[in-house]
């Protein structure tokens, strides 16, 4: 626990701009929050009951509420769900030796383990409501979840991030998702935090033979948001499909780093991330795929498309492919641009005025990813939130 750690030691456990994987994302603000939090060292914040209720009302899910890093039993409706076992994660789990995962291991006070025993794809999703608040003092929290799927087990998950409170907050979550042979997961991550809060989030996935992950990640909130999605393909015939959308306005920085390790083949990984950047905003996308020796028959696809609505917004997009195997099919593409002039003219020729045509095309750009995301029952809610956010950002100005 935190007792003996000095502020300097704490700062040293964060990566810096000199680390290749972090060169575009400056963590000095989260570090400052963490250091201030050390003084109080308390996460005892009253959870925002209204916010919890509104989310629970919006989607029927087996909710497991994690407030400032700790299980909020009273609000959780998913602790006795059929086909799954939920327990507390023991504190002596082996550390994951990467920056920030270590921070989580060092400072987490809670931790949940979910085991999925059956195929429950046709039942309501399991909802991880990661809700944070900071009132009275800056707060750092460490949500932590381990998810295991037995052979042939299947489930749908929502990882829903929200936050409230006037003070600064930094959330550093760590989730591990292990799929045994022929297991299947549909996973939707929706990050809708307060715009003055920051977050780093890591999801480490391991896919055994014949298992299947469909992931959708959507980031609307946060001043600083960094997601690390790491997928280890450990068995043949595994399929990982993951798509992402980020919408950023002035003052926001959204960084998505994905990394797929194809350790055996044949297997498929297919990702497409899209971003809409307005005002003075910045986004980073880095997609790394490593096809290890012997992972023959790998199919790895990467795409990243960005719509820059303002000249002051900035994107750093970088696909990275390292191939050490034979007979692999790999492709990547990135684009950065404005709205399609031909489509704009077409819509205007049908009577839509220019500003409306731009709005329609901007939404269409985002909608493609939302529609592809798993957990269809949340599409409408997310679509509305995207719409609202774009409107706040002054649309396609």
């Amino acid at each position, binding site marked *: 626990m935190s007792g003996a750690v000095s502020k300097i030691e704490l700062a040293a456990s964060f990566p810096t701009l000199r680390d290749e994987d972090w060169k575009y994302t400056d963590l000095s603000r989260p570090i400052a929050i963490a250091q201030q939090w050390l003084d109080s060292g308390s996460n005892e914040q009253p959870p925002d009951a209204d916010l919890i209720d509104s989310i629970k009302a919006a989607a029927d899910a087996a909710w497991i509420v994690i407030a400032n890093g700790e299980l909020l039993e009273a609000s959780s409706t998913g602790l006795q769900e059929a086909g799954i076992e939920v327990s507390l994660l023991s504190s002596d789990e082996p550390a994951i030796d990467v920056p920030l995962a270590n921070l989580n291991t060092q400072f987490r006070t809670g931790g949940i383990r979910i085991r999925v025993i059956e195929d429950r794809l046709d039942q309501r999703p399991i909802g991880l409501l990661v809700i944070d608040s900071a009132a009275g003092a800056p707060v750092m929290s460490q949500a932590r979840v381990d998810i295991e799927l037995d052979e042939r087990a299947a489930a749908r998950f929502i990882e829903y991030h929200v936050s409230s409170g006037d003070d600064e907050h930094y959330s550093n979550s760590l989730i591990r998702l292990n799929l045994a042979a022929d297991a299947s997961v549909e996973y939707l991550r929706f990050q809708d935090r307060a715009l003055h809060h920051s977050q780093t989030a890591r999801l480490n996935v391991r896919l055994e033979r014949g298992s299947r992950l469909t992931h959708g990640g959507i980031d609307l909130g946060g001043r600083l948001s960094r997601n690390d999605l790491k997928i280890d393909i450990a068995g043949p015939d595994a399929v990982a499909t993951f798509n992402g959308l980020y919408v950023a306005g002035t003052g926001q920085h959204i960084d998505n780093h994905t990394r797929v390790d194809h350790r055996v083949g044949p297997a498929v990984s297919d990702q497409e991330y899209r971003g809409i950047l307005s005002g003075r905003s910045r986004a980073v996308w880095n997609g790394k795929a490593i096809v290890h020796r012997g992972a023959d028959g790998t199919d790895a696809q990467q795409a990243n498309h960005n719509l820059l609505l303002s000249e002051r917004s900035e994107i750093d997009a970088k696909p990275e492919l390292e191939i050490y195997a034979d007979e692999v099919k790999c492709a990547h593409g990135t684009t950065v641009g404005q709205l399609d002039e031909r489509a704009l003219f*077409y*819509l205007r*020729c*049908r*009577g*839509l*005025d220019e500003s409306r045509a731009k709005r329609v095309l901007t939404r*269409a750009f985002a909608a*493609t990813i939302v*529609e592809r995301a798993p957990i269809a029952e949340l599409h409408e809610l997310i679509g509305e939130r995207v719409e609202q956010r774009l409107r706040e950002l002054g649309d396609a100005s």
Partner: protein
Amino acid sequence: MLNIENLKVTIGDSEILRGLSLSVKAGEVHAIMGPNGSGKSTLASVIAGHEDYVVTDGTVRFKGADLLELEPEERAREGIFLGFQYPVEIPGVNNAYLLKAALNAKREHHGLEEIDAFEFLKLAREKMAVLGMDPKFLNRGVNEGFSGGEKKRNEILQMAMLEPDLAILDETDSGLDIDALKAVAEGVNALRAPDRAIILVTHYQRLLDYIEPDYVHVLSEGRIARSGDKTLALELEEKGYEWVREAANA
């Protein structure tokens, strides 16, 4: 309805239309023919309001008003419809959404209420049946993954829904098999009315077997080189475009 006088249009450094004049009255169907690159699509784009084409001289009047003053969307709401030679694919924009938005933009402009959802669907299904289109197309992205023929039918569907005063169909017949061609022709013929005008842009005579034009014009070197009735199209088919060019230069 449409009066074009001495229209000169450039794109980039090249002058494409070099003093074109054309007059289209309500109730008429005009065919504009001409070889590839003669400026047919340029003319259609200028009438629709494309900003890349610069009008350097001449006038275009629509229903008595200066058309060149209007934005593309204003022209559409005033009753001009351009059926694109290459309809644009717009993934993520629902076909039904666009049809309804287009219809309502026009209705609003004319002081009418928005169309009721039920009425809209009924109308769309009706028009689709005539065109031999599966109603499923309503829920797809605009032209997304459509075949060439499906895209052209979709243009005609939009036209049928919007009931324009002046429809300009740019090579709507190209790439169509005979069934699709007949369906498209049926859609166009259904629109023929004393208060409407239609301009068919084509470089084949084939379409004119199904839609009989009142006038045929041949575009060559940026001007109407020759005008006549439907027999001109047959003559062209026989003698080729060179004949027009030679006759014009003689």
